[in-house]
């Protein structure tokens, strides 16, 4: 599975981002008072601090109350979530918990941070002319990165068992040079908002995924 694609320009700004697949881990449950989970505010969200059951994990955020998506720390109709949930009169209540999805701003910031890490990685290299970070590996995903000679970075986050990502990165470079650069209305270094780029990228991701963990032709 391929989770997402990021394209970063020469200055470290995120110019394209696509979430292709996100493992669904939302859980919606009805609760009666008192809530047996401990919730606390964290940044702009309300997260589970303690108490894990039925798929609800520590760190999961409150995504919706009674079917209506929350707006940060407030319910859809403007009430403070923690206050709402501490009032017995509001129960029984249905709450949806899940992993918080990154906002556009967070993605922008993370991409720019990766750009800096990439630069540090190259500087740490004992040999001159390092390719820079090519892969960042964790137990749940692998981040693959390819920097072109002109300084653009293409990044793909995928399942650790997914193969063929090197070829996919080169393919994304081709798709970029075709559908973004050859579109005269697209300005270099700016966010890519080209329909054809989207379509062809999604197609390329599907082809890479179908190839399976053993490479194309499997």
């Amino acid at each position, binding site marked *: 599975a391929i989770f997402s694609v990021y394209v970063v320009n020469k200055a470290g700004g995120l110019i394209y981002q696509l979430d292709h697949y996100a493992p669904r881990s939302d859980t919606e449950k009805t609760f009666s008072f008192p809530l047996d989970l401990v919730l606390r505010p964290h940044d702009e969200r309300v997260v589970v601090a303690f108490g894990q059951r039925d798929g609800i994990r520590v760190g999961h955020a409150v995504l919706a109350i009674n079917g209506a998506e929350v707006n940060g720390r407030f319910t859809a109709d403007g009430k403070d979530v923690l206050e709402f949930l501490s009032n017995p009169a509001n129960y029984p209540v249905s709450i949806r918990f899940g992993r918080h999805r990154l906002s556009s701003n967070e993605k922008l910031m993370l991409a720019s941070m990766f750009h800096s890490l990439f630069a540090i990685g*190259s500087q740490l290299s004992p040999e001159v002319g*390092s390719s820079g970070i090519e892969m960042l590996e964790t137990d749940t995903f692998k981040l693959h990165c390819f*920097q*072109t000679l*002109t300084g653009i970075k293409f990044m793909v986050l995928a399942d650790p068992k997914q193969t063929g990502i090197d070829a996919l990165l080169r393919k994304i470079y081709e798709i970029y040079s075709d559908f973004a650069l050859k579109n005269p209305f697209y300005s270099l270094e700016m966010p890519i908002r080209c329909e054809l780029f989207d379509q062809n990228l999604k197609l390329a991701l599907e082809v890479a995924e179908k190839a399976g963990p053993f490479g194309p032709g499997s």
Partner: protein
Amino acid sequence: QNSELFTLTYGALVTQLCKDYENDDDVNKQLDKMGYNIGVRLIEDFLARSNVGRCHDFRETADVIAKIAFKMYLGITPSITNWSPAGDEFSLILENNPLVDFVELPDNHSTLIYSNLLCGVLRGALEMVQMAVDVKFVQDTLKGDSVTEIRMKFIRRIEDNLPAGEE
């Protein structure tokens, strides 16, 4: 693939610029500018498709330009000659230039550099891979010379905004 449409399109472009600007010098500048905008985009297509790595000196660059790039985009392979002693200047000799098939320069456009777009393309493309170069036509079959000669001079490496790992 038939290149007539390409030749005709380029011709239409040049004649329109001549109407718009009325003097050859301005047309030459515009062609260079347009070429530059093409070059900065074309370089990515070139790198994506040719899989060429970074060139480490100007000789490698000359080879890649003549043997791979020109072949890929114009179907011709110019020869590389007239290297300067310092190795920072060379000439590309084009036996034929697809842009000027069927073209004759009239007397009132004697200072027009018809194919100046190519100079801009080369300049723009190389700038994106951190090379500042000067590119100009020194011989032109349209002006009665026996060959078309493009002179390329290496000015400096562009040090600001280097991609990480290139220092």
